[in-house]
C-alpha cells in the first residue's frame, strides 16, 4: 500500500497503526509530533487504534520552539 507522508510517497508491505508508522519512519520522539491524517489532527490516544489505509495522506507536524532540541527523524 502507498501513503503520502509529509508530501512524499511511502510504500508499505502491510497496513500499520499510526504508532507503528511513527516507528517505521524513525521518529525518535513521537511525543513531540502531532499527526494529521487526511486533514484531521488525531488525538494522541488514536495513535494506537488508528490503522492506515492505502492512499492516506499523513503529516507529521513537529513541535518547534526556538533553538531547542526536540525529536527529529534521521532522514
Amino acid at each position: 500500500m502507498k501513503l503520502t507522508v509529509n508530501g512524499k510517497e511511502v510504500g508499505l508491505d502491510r497496513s500499520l497503526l499510526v504508532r507503528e508508522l511513527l516507528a517505521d519512519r524513525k521518529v525518535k520522539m513521537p511525543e513531540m509530533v502531532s499527526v494529521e491524517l487526511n486533514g484531521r489532527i488525531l488525538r494522541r490516544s488514536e495513535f494506537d487504534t488508528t490503522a492506515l489505509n492505502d492512499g492516506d495522506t499523513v503529516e507529521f507536524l513537529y513541535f518547534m520552539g526556538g533553538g531547542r532540541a526536540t525529536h527529529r527523524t534521521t532522514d
Partner: protein
Amino acid sequence: MPLTEQQIERYSRHIILQQVGGAGQEKLLASRVLIVGAGGLGAPAALYLAAAGVGTIGLLDGDEVDLTNLQRQIIHHTDDVGRRKVDSAAEKMRAINPDVSVRTYDVWARAENLREIVKEYDFVIDGVDNFPGKFLINDACYFERIPFCHAGILQFEGQLMTVLPGRTSCYRCLFPSAPPPGAVPSCGQAGVLGVLPGVIGSLQATEAIKCLLGIGDLLTDTLLTYSALTMEFRKVRVSRNPDCALCGPNATITTLVDEGDVACDEKGCRC
C-alpha cells in the same frame, strides 16, 4: 496624520507599491505590533518592522544578551553582551527609524501580564523559544482576539502559521498541549543554523505587514514549513480542530494559565 516630506522620501519604495501607497504607509505608522521575544526570530522582525515604519512596536523579553546569542540574534551586537535584550534591541530600532515609538517590557511573558499587554496591539509576533510561552501567546491572543503569527525553528527547519483567533486554526488546534518537560533536551544539544531565524522571522514580519494593510492572503489554516537543507517550502493545510480545548465548541480552557516555566531552566542553557 499626513506624511511629511521626509517620510514620503523614506517610505517611497512602499508608497510606489499599488497595494501600499500613501494611505497604506499612514496605516502602518498608525499601527501597533508586539514582538514577544527579542531573540533569533524577534531580531529580524523588529528590524524590518521598524524600517517599514510600523508606528508603535512593543518588545517583550526578560533576558539579557549572551555571547552565544550573537550567531543569530542580529539585532544585538558584540558590545551589547550583558545588556538587557529589550534595551539593546530598542536602541537599534530607534537608530534605524526615529519615526517608531518602541515600548519595552523587560519581563517574561506570564499568565498574569500577557493579556493586558497584547490588547494594546493590533498584531503579535511569537518569537519565543519555549512551548509554555507559545501556548501563552496563543491563548492570550485568543482571549483578546488579536491576530498573531506563530513560528518555531529547529536546527535547519522552521515553521510558521498566522492565526486570526476564533476564525482560523490556532496553535492548540495543531498541538493540544505542551510536550512533557523530559521530552525536550537542552538547546545546546540541538543547535540552529544562524540564518534560519532570519528567514522565518522575516516571514513573520511579512505577515504582520500584510495583516495591518489588509492585503494578500494570510498564512491562515496553513502551517508553512521550511527546510534550509533542501530549500523546500511546504504548506500543510490545517483545519480548525473540533477537539481544540481553546477554540473548539467544547472548549475547556477559559482563562489564561501558565503551562510551566517560560524561562529555560536547563543549567547553562542559552536558548
